[in-house]
């Protein structure tokens, strides 16, 4: 009995002394941190993709709590998740329009081959020495720098061409930064019609190096419902994302080079081998 009592007493005494030391230390070296940051971090997707412009989700959460960034800056989070964060912070959040990446090139290896390339299989390396295997200066090099940068596996390399799967893309924009040809743009997810060409050269020059280039024939402009649905810039036509055409334009316009495509169909491989 005595042993038990002494043991208990000793343990209690030791505990008390140590607790006192830690308590004093905790007071002396106290760090103020906002517990909300951790909660918000947990609410975010945790992909750490950097699409919001901050270094990872924790950093973004800090910005939200400090009121520097709105919750809808996260391109990955679903609408509900964003609202949840906003509710927790006691602010209202507008739903942000979802964007997806589009690689503005449709020239696969079989459409635009130039010469064999024997070197590092990386777009950013290839542009430094002769620019890869394809004939077009403006087109996709096809060595998958964007696909490797994509944290969501949304980019596939098919026939030496980067193709974005719109259903997998969350629009974080990582691929936009790595493309040495500045081919990739973020477009509203609701728009399906895109011109898959980025070459400002003359139609004939483009046609010489690529079967699927936009030759600026304006068939799509004429077929569109209103005048400014397709924008003409020199020899290149692009979708007007502020006043986008309906998906049926692709069929109506019957683009002679199939540069005008639906993103969903393009991803599904519907245009392969149809170029003349």
């Amino acid at each position, binding site marked *: 009995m*005595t*042993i038990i009592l*002494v*043991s208990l007493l*000793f*343990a209690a005494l*030791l*505990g008390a002394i*140590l*607790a006192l*030391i*830690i308590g004093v*230390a*905790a007071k002396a*070296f*106290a*760090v103020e941190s906002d517990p909300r940051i951790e909660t918000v971090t947990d609410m975010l997707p945790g992909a750490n993709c950097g699409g919001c412009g901050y270094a990872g989700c924790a950093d973004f959460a800090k910005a939200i709590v400090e009121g520097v960034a709105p919750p809808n800056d996260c391109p990955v989070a679903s609408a509900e998740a964003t609202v949840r964060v906003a509710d927790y912070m006691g602010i209202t959040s507008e739903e942000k329009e979802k964007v997806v990446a589009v690689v503005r090139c449709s020239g696969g290896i079989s459409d635009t081959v130039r010469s064999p390339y024997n070197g590092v299989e990386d777009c950013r390396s290839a542009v430094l020495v002769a620019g890869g295997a394809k004939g077009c200066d403006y087109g996709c090099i096809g060595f998958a720098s964007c696909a490797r940068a994509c944290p969501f596996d949304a980019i596939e390399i098919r026939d030496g061409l980067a193709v974005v799967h719109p259903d997998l893309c969350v629009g974080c924009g990582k691929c936009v930064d790595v493309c040495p040809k500045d081919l990739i743009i973020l477009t509203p997810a609701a728009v399906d019609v895109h011109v898959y060409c980025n070459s400002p050269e003359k139609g004939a020059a483009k046609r010489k190096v690529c079967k699927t280039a936009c030759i600026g024939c304006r068939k799509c402009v004429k077929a569109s419902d209103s005048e400014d649905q397709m924008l003409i810039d020199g020899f290149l036509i692009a979708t007007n994302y502020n006043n986008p055409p309906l998906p049926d334009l692709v069929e109506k316009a019957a683009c002679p080079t199939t540069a005008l495509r639906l993103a969903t169909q393009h991803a599904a491989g519907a245009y392969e081998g149809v170029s003349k």
Partner: protein
Amino acid sequence: MADNILAITIGAILVNNFVLSKFLGICPFLGVSKKLSTALGMSGAVVFVMTLSSLVTSLIYKFVLSKSFTINGTAVNLSFLKILVFIVVIASLVQLVEIVLQKFSPPLYQALGIFLPLITTNCAVLGAAELNVQAGRGVLASTIYGFCSALGFALALVLFSSLREKLDLARVPVPLQGTAIGLITAGILAMVFMGFSGLV
């Protein structure tokens, strides 16, 4: 005495290295060895905790736990409380380190993450305290042993993290990537340390 201390030093750092020979403290050894900078931070924390815990535990053991005394006619010896007391002391020290680190080096605190509180359950720390008792070392010898064992742990951790930084650049076959190649490397490193056996 000086001979003895030298033997303890070399023995603890090289011959009976806690990680590579006794296989104690493997969890942080694998966990925080991805980068040299965090490995150095972890080493610093472990050196601090292990030295201090060896000192404190040997003091407590020498002056309280190992003593037999009589209360109300009953002979009392509290040495059976050894492990309990040791772990409480270690846990408190880790808490202390955590508080100080959070204040003065938030990036290191972030980088060490869960492994910092886990020093508490790091068997190397408790092991040092226990081995001191088993070997019947005095307070000074115990403290030196704790410090040198921690240095041995730090040495192993720094060597290993440097290797892993190199491994980062190598092309490792897919099934072996990550911890697998880490364990293989650790095994080879342990074999290298076998070369020190018989030195003391």
